[in-house]
């Protein structure tokens, strides 16, 4: 199994969810995060002063998928979230040694 970590633009989340609906990925975990990278933050105003907010709000998806599904999911994610503009985000693939579904105690791919 792999943990696929996707850091994407918040407003891409819905499209991505739909796209994944077509796969055998049944679940995912989403976190609001602050991103630092090539895409720069915006400037805010305060009584004539300007200060830059140096981070960009992003959303981080964590998907654990069976090895055989990884490639398909990666393609889907890229397809659903690419705009070609700086800030589209990143995908990281991390090995997972075990997964357990708490409810049933099932382990391995069947736990996903």
């Amino acid at each position, binding site marked *: 199994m792999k943990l696929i970590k996707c850091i994407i633009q918040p407003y891409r989340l819905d499209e991505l969810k739909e796209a994944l609906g077509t796969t055998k990925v049944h679940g995912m975990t989403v976190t609001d995060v602050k991103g630092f990278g090539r895409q720069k933050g915006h400037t805010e*105003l*305060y*009584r*004539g*002063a*300007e*200060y830059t907010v140096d981070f960009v709000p992003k959303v981080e998806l964590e998907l654990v998928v069976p090895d055989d599904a990884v490639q398909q999911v990666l393609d889907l994610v890229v397809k659903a979230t690419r705009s070609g503009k700086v800030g589209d985000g990143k995908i990281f693939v991390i090995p997972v040694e075990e997964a357990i579904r708490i409810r049933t105690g099932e382990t391995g791919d069947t736990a996903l």
Partner: protein
Amino acid sequence: MKTMMKASSKFIFLAMLLLIIGALVAPALVTAQEAAPAAAAAPAAPNKIDTGDTAWMIVATALVMLMSIPGLALFYGGLAKTKDALNTMAMTFVTFCIVSLLWVLYGYTFSFGDDVRGLIGNASKLFLKGVGPNSISDLAKTIPEYIFIAYQLTFAAITVALASGAYIERMKFSAWVLFSVIWMTLVYLPVAHWVWGNGFLAKLGALDFAGGTVVHVNAGIAALVGALMLGKRKSKPIMPGNLTLVITGAGLLWFGWFGFNAGSALAANGLAGAAFINTNTAAAVAALAWMFIEWKHSGRPTVLGLASGAVGGLVAITPAAGFVNVSGAIIIGIAAGIIPFYAVAKLKPMFGYDDTLDAFGIHGIGGMLGAILTGVFADPAINPAGTGLLYGNPGQLWTQIVAVAVTVVYSGVMTFIIFMIIKAVVGIRVDAEEEMRGLDESQHGEKAYNL
């Protein structure tokens, strides 16, 4: 320590400057013509309670109370960082409570008791001695004295609270409590007496309808001096925690200000009407002026700009509300939207004092502006008690400058001394680590939000 040095040196310079102004204007004292204080605007009939005037003044008093809690508390609390929001609100809250108590004990009598050498009121009404449901003050001849007392109380309270805007995010709560007690006693009481209690500035003919000098210049200078004494905060950037609170606060301040300005007619009459529409006009115009200037200056109009401009306009019209006509109010509004904007956007960075929420920039500058322009635009057709430069009385402008200068010098010097005393007794600043964790947790053991 270094901050300390810088602070005091800066202050000395300031003081010098103003003492000079004071000296220059001395002659004016001689030539200045008599003029009645705003209170005189009330009919000079024999003292008798009028239910209509009483109804209005009861409400006006409640309105000015509302300006402090929650009005100012929200306006300031929403601009503070989230970790300091409660402490900021607590400063206004505790001050209103402290002044409420001290006012009935000795505040009222020392500011509005019979005049002693033009400097202070006498102690005849200590603990409101001799005041009952049927008492009427000669300063407000148609309403119960209890209401007049309560009305004046609310002015004293908000004046002290205004200064806190320059101190937040680093001042010890205990130091602030002490400051409220001492500053209200040594600074507010005499100044209020000078202008409204038939003190020497009143005799001099200074015009201050609702508190341009007594309230705003007074508090604004205290804000500046205190900010210099406290020194800069560790973390620079401003991070308004909750701007929806700021807009709410601004709205309540505007609403309450009708009690503040129209209430200063001390009656439900045409003068109150004039003060009312002038107040609304100046606030609106200043908000628009600030918004457009900022739009030009920074490319976008901000909500905080609208709110700040409105407050600036309310401050500047305060001394003028019952003296100028609507055209005067519009001009004062324009000035009050533009000048404080630059004071905040340019002056502050230039001099580098850390006036956290611009209490000096908006109340100090705006108050001086209003006090001086009152001397220009006071229209005898609105209020016979005041005639300004434009209506053939240049002396009035001079008198206004004197009143401002006196207030600036006195408030500045006294605030400096008071801070020195408090610094010696309990210290004025929280330690760096408490500041970083936020004053809500360190001073109060509370957290504004658990969302």
